[in-house]
């Protein structure tokens, strides 16, 4: 069975999804989903171990060797990200049943879990495949399930947010399809490793340049890189809270993976960054994302909006690391992907707990929550500190590595900008802390109880991970560095 791990990583949640239709009761379906997700998590751990020991794994689907058949290709990069995705998925699921009790009507809960599993399948499929068109298919699986999940939110704005996301997401996916088509036209293959060897011959053509541009624009739409981020804030805010917790920690990471994979492994560094002024462009967009999104976050009334814009800013940080095109820059980006998943996972999960008890996420409704929901608010505080980049948290680790990578290039001004961005984060986190701890609870409102264990356990799991990996950074740094190294090794 061990040799089949690569495909099982995707098949387990995929087969689990329709099976949920056969089991009927939501609680049973929840346990089943939790089981499937944990299994996927275990598989990802095993795969990562295998890859760290023996190097890239290749699996031929259907027994046909690539490029005639579809290949699954696991290397350090995607094994690492698969670990993050399946891990967050499992932890978030622990609180799922309790959370959706209040947010999704009874008869739709089974459908919710099916869509959740399909979303997980889609993301894992994008990560593990070695075939460009297969990426498109699984991208659509994850997107379609995402649109449906977001639309399950109670507020009618969830429907509108989902529709806007559908339009923008499908345009992005179609752009990606155009890019793949152009690449195929010039090389005759769809296999990613094969593309990497054949693209250099045709790299000078205008067609390939066009292919690259369309592909990257499509990916950046999914990544929510400024200025293509418009779908994200509303989608995250109005989706059911547990959905936001899941997506905030995972969906942009998968898009970032595609960006890294196609730029480094397929098109190659020399093409991607010399033919077009990508370095400069990404740098500018990244910095703009950080500042504009953080500033907008400060003025938001709804805390979910605050953290959604914060996510757009965090994507900016990742892209800044990416644009450095150095080994250190890429390591910083990968580290930040890991850390951001932990940070936002914890934050949005804690917010889900607040929604469960309070029913709203408006800043005004947070008054006095510090005393009434101490554990939950403490979790939000730690998450916030992590966002800012306070030492002893994972946020500090990624900011540190980013600043070091930037200074390595001699761009002191950029390091200053990164730190300035953290200052903005201080402002919007402080607003929340101030309201929760230093304002009296709203008069006439019923006292709010602490969140139930179903929330506290996963939230504090993620929060402890935030602190643990902020102190003992060996694991995350080692894997990120190794992954970055392997990418530079493969690319020209």
């Amino acid at each position, binding site marked *: 069975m061990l040799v089949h791990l690569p495909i099982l990583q995707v098949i387990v949640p995929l087969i689990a999804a329709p099976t949920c239709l056969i089991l009927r009761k939501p609680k049973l379906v929840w346990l089943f989903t939790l089981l499937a997700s944990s299994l996927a998590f275990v598989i990802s751990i095993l795969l990562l171990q295998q890859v760290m020991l023996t190097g890239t794994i290749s699996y031929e689907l259907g027994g046909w060797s690539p490029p005639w058949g579809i290949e699954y290709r696991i290397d350090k990069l995607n094994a690492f990200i698969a670990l993050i995705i399946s891990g967050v998925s499992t932890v978030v699921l622990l609180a799922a049943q309790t959370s959706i009790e209040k947010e999704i009507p009874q008869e739709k809960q089974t459908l919710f879990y099916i869509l959740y599993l399909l979303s997980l399948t889609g993301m894992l499929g994008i990560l593990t495949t070695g075939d460009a*068109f297969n990426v*498109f*298919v699984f991208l*659509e699986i994850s997107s*379609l399930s995402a*649109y*449906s999940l977001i*639309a399950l939110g109670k507020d*009618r*704005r969830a*429907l*509108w947010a*989902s*529709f806007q996301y*559908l*339009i923008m997401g*499908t*345009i992005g996916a*179609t752009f990606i*399809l*155009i890019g793949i*088509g152009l690449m*195929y*036209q010039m090389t005759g293959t*769809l296999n990613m490793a094969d593309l990497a060897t054949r693209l250099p011959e045709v790299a000078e053509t205008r067609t390939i340049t066009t292919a690259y541009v369309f592909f990257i624009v499509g990916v950046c739409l999914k990544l929510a890189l400024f200025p293509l981020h418009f779908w994200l804030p509303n989608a995250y805010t109005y989706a059911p809270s547990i959905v936001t917790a899941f997506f905030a920690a995972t969906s942009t990471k998968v898009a970032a993976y595609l960006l890294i994979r196609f730029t480094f492994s397929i098109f190659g560094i020399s093409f991607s960054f010399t033919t077009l002024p990508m370095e400069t462009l990404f740098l500018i967009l990244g910095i703009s994302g950080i500042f504009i999104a953080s500033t907008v976050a400060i003025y938001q009334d709804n805390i979910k909006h605050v953290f959604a814009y914060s996510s757009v800013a965090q994507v900016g940080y990742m892209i800044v690391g990416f644009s450095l095109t150095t080994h250190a820059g890429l390591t910083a980006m990968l580290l930040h992907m890991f850390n951001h998943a932990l940070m936002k996972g914890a934050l949005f999960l804690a917010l889900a707990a607040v929604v469960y008890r309070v029913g709203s996420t*408006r800043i*005004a409704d947070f008054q006095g929550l510090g005393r009434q929901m101490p554990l939950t608010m403490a979790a939000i505080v730690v998450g916030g500190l992590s966002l800012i980049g306070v030492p002893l948290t994972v946020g500090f680790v990624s900011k540190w590595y980013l600043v070091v990578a930037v200074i390595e290039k001699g761009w002191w001004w950029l390091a200053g900008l990164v730190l300035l961005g953290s200052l903005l984060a201080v402002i919007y986190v402080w607003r929340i802390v101030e309201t929760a701890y230093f304002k009296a609870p709203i008069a006439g409102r019923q006292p709010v109880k602490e969140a139930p264990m179903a929330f506290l356990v996963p939230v504090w799991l993620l929060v402890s991970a935030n602190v643990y990996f902020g102190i003992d950074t060996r694991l995350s740094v080692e894997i990120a560095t190794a992954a970055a190294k392997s990418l530079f090794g493969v690319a020209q």
Partner: protein
Amino acid sequence: MTMILGLYNYWIVIVLMMIGFYIIIAHGHLIKKIIGLNIFQTSVFIFYISVGKVEGATAPIWQEGILLYSNPLPHVLILTAIVVGIATTALGLALIVRIKEAYGSVDEDEIQSMDNQDVANQEKEHQQC
């Protein structure tokens, strides 16, 4: 000259794509956006299929004596893409039905102003508290 003859097919497809794309972003009526999306995607399909065509060949079904076939791979890809397209359309239309129920309108501008109105009303409510 041969270049124009060899490429004009692609140019026409690109024009179709762009009309579809334009319909998506320029129109406010939600169903029209979905139709624009359809046209956009179908044009991409036409592009892929054109790539696979070989002059003087036949459909890729094995027949005795025929040696020149058009490329089956783009056909396979587009079959999948058509299915993906209908899936997206179905979801989009379902969303539109729900939006109509919830907002009473399927026009982008009207919905947006209703949302802004909601936000403004909430502001007023909270200032009164």
